[in-house]
Every structure is written in C-alpha cells, then in structure tokens.
C-alpha cells in the first residue's frame, strides 16, 4: 500500500500539477495582498483628509481615543451584559495594538493569512482541490493507462484506497502551500505581523442566531490554526466528492464542470435557506464553516456540529459510491 501511494504521488509530481497550484496560489495571494495594501493606503489618506495629518501620522492618537471612548461606554450601568462583553473584548484588542505597536488600520501578515482563507474557503479552495484531484482517476482513463493499472496483481479496492490516501495527502499539502505562501508574501508586503493579536470568537447560538454572551478572545495564531483545520476538513470532503465524479464520469472536464456547477448553485441556493429548509441538507451550504468561529453570518438554525455531520455524510456516501463503481466498472469500453 505504501508503495502504491508513493507511486501515485510520484505521478502527480511528474505531471507538474503541484507547481501549477503553487503558481496559482502565489499569483492570487499577490493580487490580494496588493489590493489590501492599496486599500490601507486609501484608508490612511481618508483619515488624513478627515481628521488632519496628525492622526494619520500617529495612529496611536486615534487608537487611544477609540480606547478611551470604549472604556467610557463600558462605565454606563445601563449596558446589557452582551454589549459590555463585546466592548471589553474590543478594549482588549485596542490595548494589544497599543502595547505591541501595531497599527490597526494596516493589515498585518497574520490578519492577511486569516482573511485569505476566510475568503477562499467557499470557492477558491474547492477549486484548487478540484485541480489537484479531478483527474486522479479519470486521467487514467483518458490516458488509457487504466488497463495497465488494473491488470496488475493488485486488487481494485487497494488501487482506489491508494488514490484516496493520495488525495488526502495532496489536500494536506495544499493547506501547507496556501499557508506558507500567504504568510510569506504578506510579511514581505506588510512588514508587521500581529500573530498574537486577540481575535474574538466563542459565539453562542441562541434561537438560531449567533449570540455574544460567552465571547472570548484567542490569539490570532490559534485562530488561524483552527480555521485552517476547518478548511482542511472542507477540502477533504470536496476531494471525496470530486473523486466520486471522477470515477463515475471518467472525464476530467465533466468532473470539474459538475463540481463548479454544484458550488455555484449552492451559493445561490443558500439565500433560500430560511424559507426552504431542505436546502440545509445540501453540502455546499455548509462549506463556510469558518463563519461559526468568526460570527460573520447568522446560521439559520444551523450548528457547527450539524454542518460537520452533513459534510461527513456526503463524504462517506461519495466514498461508498466511488468504491462500488470502481470495483465493478468495466474498463474495456
């Protein structure tokens, strides 16, 4: 089995697919980083325009004022518990910025690494997974090598298992590639880090919406570790589904096309999730797992556990179908 997996990986290396992935990620990260850099320049210009140059040149003044304002708001005895929790977390963030000399209006490399994954988990990450995975099986058909592979004295399920393991290895490698490229390039562009900056998380779900009554803050590096872990999970599930389509269709183009259609359809369908409950069993709706940690959207009665379960269910069904189809497939055609 070990030899089989090694052999599969060697094939991928020969096909230069990983190089294509690295270049794609590097181009996208550079574009994104430039956009972010440009944006923060513009924000500074606007601050200078509105508040006078003293504020733009010395962000500490501005941050200190924000901090003071928040501290005073916290003194109001009429605040609700929820509001004062949020305020004290924001205060903690401002204090961190001041103590560690980090300008909050300029993105640091940690924030960038985080944002890049938050933005790409829905579309870009699944797309990269497809590029890596889509022809693992169908490529053997189009290259006519499937007959050579299946006539070896190795059972079919072993071959497919090797390919599945290969898929997981590639996805894991992909996470490392995305992390290193975005951390490296953004450090070059932005200079400042901010890996220890506090990030707000730990939301509760109260009657189907995210609540703040238990929010805490975690250092940004830990937060990034968590969201990359969730992204890995999503990528593996997308990988299983792509493998299934690849086995069934034997055609790389059709595989990518169908997966793209599902992703795009899912992002449109998720608008209806409140009125059409059946949508919540569709896997694409659950791809944005990060939102449970970041509190960006209101999950319509969804929980992280439910989303993980749905994704796992789709993944295992896809795995099952792949094996059934691959073992019984007629390769003479």
């Amino acid at each position, binding site marked *: 089995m070990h030899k089989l997996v090694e052999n599969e990986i060697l094939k991928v290396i020969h096909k230069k697919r990983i190089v294509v992935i690295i270049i794609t990620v590097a181009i996208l990260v550079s574009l994104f980083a430039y956009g972010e850099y440009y944006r923060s320049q513009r924000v500074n210009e606007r601050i200078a325009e509105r*508040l006078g140059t003293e504020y733009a040149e010395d962000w500490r003044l501005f941050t200190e004022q924000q901090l003071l304002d928040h501290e005073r708001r916290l003194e109001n005895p009429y605040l609700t518990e929820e509001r004062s929790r949020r305020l004290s977390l924001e205060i903690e963030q401002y204090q961190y910025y001041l103590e560690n000399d980090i300008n909050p209006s300029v993105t640091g490399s940690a924030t960038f690494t985080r944002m890049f994954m938050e933005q790409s988990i829905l579309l870009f990450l699944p797309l990269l997974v497809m590029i890596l995975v889509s022809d693992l099986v169908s490529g053997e058909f189009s290259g006519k090598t499937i007959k050579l592979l299946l006539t070896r004295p190795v059972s079919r399920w072993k071959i497919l298992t090797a390919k599945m393991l290969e898929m997981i290895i590639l996805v894991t490698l992909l996470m490392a590639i995305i992390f290193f490229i975005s951390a490296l390039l953004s450090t070059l562009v932005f200079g400042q880090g901010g890996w220890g900056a506090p990030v707000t998380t730990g939301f509760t779900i109260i009657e189907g919406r995210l609540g703040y009554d*238990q929010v805490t803050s975690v250092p940004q590096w830990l937060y990034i*570790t968590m969201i990359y872990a969730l992204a890995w999970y999503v990528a593996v599930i997308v990988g299983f589904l792509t493998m299934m389509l690849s086995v069934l269709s034997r055609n790389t183009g059709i595989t990518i096309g169908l997966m793209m259609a599902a992703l795009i359809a899912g992002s449109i369908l998720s608008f209806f999730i409140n009125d059409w409950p059946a949508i919540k069993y569709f896997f694409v709706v659950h791809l944005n797992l990060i939102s449970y940690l970041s509190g960006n959207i209101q999950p319509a009665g969804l929980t992280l556990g439910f989303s993980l379960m749905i994704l796992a269910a789709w993944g295992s069904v896809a795995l099952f179908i792949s094996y059934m189809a691959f073992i019984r497939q007629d390769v003479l055609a």
Partner: protein
Amino acid sequence: MIKYVWKFILFIVLITAVWIAYGMMNVYEYAPREGASQIEPDPLQQTEIDRENKGIDDSYLIMIAGDSIARGRGDQSGLGLAISFPEEINQRPTEVLNLGADGLVSSELYGMISRPDLEEPLQNAEVIILSIGGNDLRRVAFLALQGEEITPNSMEYREILSQYLEQLQEVRDYIRNRNQDTRIILIGLFNPFEAEEISDYLPRDLQLDILFDWNYQTQLFMEQDPMSLFLPTYDLFKWNSAEYLSFDLIHPTQMGYRVLSDRIADLF
C-alpha cells in the same frame, strides 16, 4: 532526486497534519454552543445598587438623558455636558445621573425615561437635561440623499417633526406627572447636516431653513411649560467648529462640551 521530493512532501504533510489536528481540537473548544442563558441580568437591579451607594437623596440631582451628546461622546474626560457643573449647588453636593445612549431617537426617549427604576430619581431631580432630535433630523438628511425634495414645508419633513414633537410631549407629560417643578432643559441642535456631505442634495440655505425651523418649533413647544427651557447652541459652534467639534463633525470636543456646559451652568 524525485525520491527526496517524495520524502520532503511526506515530511511537510506530517507536520501539517499535526497542526490541523491541533486546530481541530481547539475548534471543539471554541465552537458555538447553545446559549446557556438567554435571560439578561436585570440592569434595573444594578441601578438600584448604584443609587444606594451614591446616596442620591440628599444631593442636588441633575439627570441627563438622550442621545450621544447627552452621553458625552467625543469628550475624553467622560463628563460631557456635566463638565462645568459646580460641585455644590445650594449647599448640596451635585449628583449627575447620565442616561445618554448613542444614536437615540425621540421615539426611544420615552422608553428610556419611563423605566420603573427611574421613578424615584425623576421625583427627586432638580434639573433634567435632554439632548434629543439630532438623530431624528438626520433621517431627514437621509431622505434628501435618497433624492427626496426636502423643504421646511415638505410632507416628509413635517411628518418627522410632528412625530418628534409628539414624543417630546409624552416625555414632558410623564416627567410633569411625577415632578411638577423640576427644570427641563432641552439642548438645541447645531448642525446635524454638516457631517453628511449632502450639500449636493440639500443646498445649504435649505439645510439652515430646516434646522432653524426644527429648533424654532422645539422652542415654541418648550415654552408652553413655564419650567422648561430651550437652550440655543447654533451660535456657539458657528465660528468655532474647528475647535469645538470633533472630527466626525457631529459630536463636540472636550472644549465644545465645556462651552455647552458653561451655558447650562450659568442658568442656575
């Protein structure tokens, strides 16, 4: 050579796998859970305790209620409108109860002031300072931004103004039912339009027409009650907006609050 690449990839993948496993463990820790308590701790009890500690009964109580200007937003000292009040008035220590909340509109003022725990302070208050209406009038500015023709006579503006006056009436009746002779001071508006950059949509002379009409109607209303007063503020900020207004052009700076507060303190 390619063997080494494979070993290298395997090495990276193993490290990444450990990293991801660590992340997964933490996800479990910080994943959103069902909210444990939906019932907010009662803010009323909190106030009760605060009031007992302060011993409001024998002091000269000044209540400030209304929007962010009432709260003192923009003033680093945190005192806001109370900044120039003397420490003692009529040999009684001055006590300030500030209920200001950012963004409050007139329809929320009644709810703010009619809470049962404020019953007692309302009965004891010597002065009640209200700052309200700025956020109502900003709604007029947004209507202008949406392309509505706004003049002092247009329906939309009249509607908002009359709702505002009705709310003020309710608030004043509520206060008067509990306290016949407390002084009510309402802070006039200075320039809520300045910050919106809407001169393309609402020419400056029309802005002033509306502002002055708003203030005039408010003043007429306040004058119906002998112990109520409308405090003009437009003049204070006209030539000094650079010093007295903070960068958002809505909230006074510390100096701005000081001149406002001086003007109030002079009334006693």
